[in-house]
């Protein structure tokens, strides 16, 4: 009974988060449009690069693979937008006080609040991505294992990315402005996760480093073309799971320590 009530509580958080997304549909539609534009630009650049080099593949990777790879990474980005800013602002502005006086775990609430919009965002961004890529750049040859691996890689990746951002945002308990921390880590993420250059066309040594980096693990979905067997998929999913556990552990510690440092100005 108690578990049922708790489940209802946290599913309602997700439901409210989704309602909030659709409270301003124009904003959502504008983001979809910008996303379509962004992946189109990426597509054009990579098609041009491949054409100019006179090669149809780089390390077995085609221009279409490259474009799809980059676009899939972008979906994770779009689905986890605002997580850092929202949590950081709540801590710094003192808005956290309206959360701390409620009978729920603040870290669970803020995680679900952040991830709650993901299903609706995913549907929109995935639909736009697929439509743009199929229309203008074609469809790569997906193997069965790649198609099967797509969803679990996305789900675990999104969970991990949200947790990473949550952990960075919790640094607001200690430092007055965690924006530089976020800025540095997000730029580092761009380098190691294949936001601009698909990792599949980079040297193997770089990919190995990237494999064991918590900032790149959320974006394994972009490396879908490297998955050729169950064990490849299993390796990626296992890395994501391990990082989820580790980051959750750090979030718990950071929250426990940080909550004693909350300082909110009064009237």
């Amino acid at each position, binding site marked *: 009974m108690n578990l049922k*009530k*708790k489940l*209802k*509580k946290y599913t*309602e*958080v997700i439901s*409210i988060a989704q*309602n*909030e997304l659709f*409270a*301003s549909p124009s904003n959502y539609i504008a983001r979809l449009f910008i996303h379509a534009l962004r992946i189109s630009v990426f597509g054009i650049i990579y098609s041009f690069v491949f054409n100019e080099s006179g090669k149809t593949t780089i390390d077995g990777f085609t221009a279409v693979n490259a474009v799809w790879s980059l676009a899939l990474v972008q979906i994770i980005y779009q689905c986890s937008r605002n997580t850092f800013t929202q949590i950081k602002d709540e801590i710094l502005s*003192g*808005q*956290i*006080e*309206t959360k*701390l*006086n*409620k*009978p*729920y*775990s603040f870290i669970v609430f803020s995680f679900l609040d952040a991830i709650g919009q993901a299903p609706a965002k995913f549907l929109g961004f995935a639909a736009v991505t697929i439509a743009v890529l199929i229309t203008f750049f074609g469809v790569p040859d997906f193997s069965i294992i790649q198609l099967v691996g797509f969803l679990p890689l996305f789900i675990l990746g999104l969970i991990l990315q949200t947790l990473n951002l949550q952990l960075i945002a919790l640094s607001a308990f200690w430092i007055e402005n965690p924006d530089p921390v976020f800025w540095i880590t997000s730029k580092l993420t761009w380098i190691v996760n294949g936001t601009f250059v698909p990792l599949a066309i980079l040297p193997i040594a770089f990919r190995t480093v990237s494999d064991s980096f918590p900032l790149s693990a959320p974006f394994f979905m972009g490396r879908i073309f490297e998955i050729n067997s169950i064990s490849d998929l299993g390796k990626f999913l296992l890395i994501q799971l391990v990082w989820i556990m580790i980051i959750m552990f750090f979030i718990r510690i950071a929250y426990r320590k940080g*909550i*004693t440092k*909350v*300082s*909110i*100005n*009064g*009237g």
Partner: protein
Amino acid sequence: MEQIVVSKLTKVFETKIKSKDAKGFFGNLKTEKREIVAVDNISFTVNKGETLAFIGPNGAGKSTTIKMLTGILYPTSGSASIIGINPWQERQKLAFRIGTVFGQKSQLSFHLPAEDSFRLFARIYELEDTEYKKRLGELIEIFNIEEYLKQPLRKLSLGQRMRCEIVASLLHNPEIIFLDEPTIGLDVVAKRDLRDVLRNINKEWNTTIFLTSHDTGDIEALCKRTIIINHGKMIYDDKTLNLKRKYITVKRLYIRFEEKIDDFKMDDVTVLVQGRYGVSLEVNTTKRNIRSVLEEIIKKYSIVDINVEDPSLEEIISNIYEQD
């Protein structure tokens, strides 16, 4: 029955300030730690069903105290028990039994109708659907919010929004409601209405009200007991009525004369305003009895009208702040 028991509660904030001997560009990076005692060793108890005003000037420590009592802030030392629960050790358990309203911060979703936020709150407080619907129905009636329940919060006036905030904090039928400046920014009508409903809630459901406010109107209308805090220390804890009795040391007289009076003078009486046919006077009652002043005036002058007034609660409280 004691619901709130606070003993020697202290909160010290640590803050960084620019170092005194900081010079040049790199000097700006030099900081010193400074301790600010926001709440200093305060103790008090509150009984079930009491209406308590917890007041003080800006920075006195009111909000810090409320936040410690609701489990949001951890104290530096001291203890507190709210309905037998330690707020900062069992925050979630306590949250089921208290309600909080922060006048300067909204707990409702800005873009969604209040109805959606209420549903979320019902789930958060683990209310059964029937229980929630019944309670919401009662609150809608008391607070008269039916017509704007389905409008996004951002489209409501401040007064309407504050009503929704209070409804949200009462959904789970809390035993105590902590209100931190609930009438801030409201117009006189909205303030009056809000005070009326809070008074009714206290009367009907025996909900303990713990209120901080800068508005003496709130205190007079709602609270039978007042605690004044200044510089983190408690300087007054008694009935609100006694606040006037204890601290009123002056009376104001407004007199209109039949004939023209140019230069009104009287021993131990201060002339505040000298008019051609009237004066405003202030009598220090510790020095001179008001009766003797009135007798002397009636004897000496021909009076058309006379008014005797106490200073407002606001003036009394501001005098207490200044004296402390």
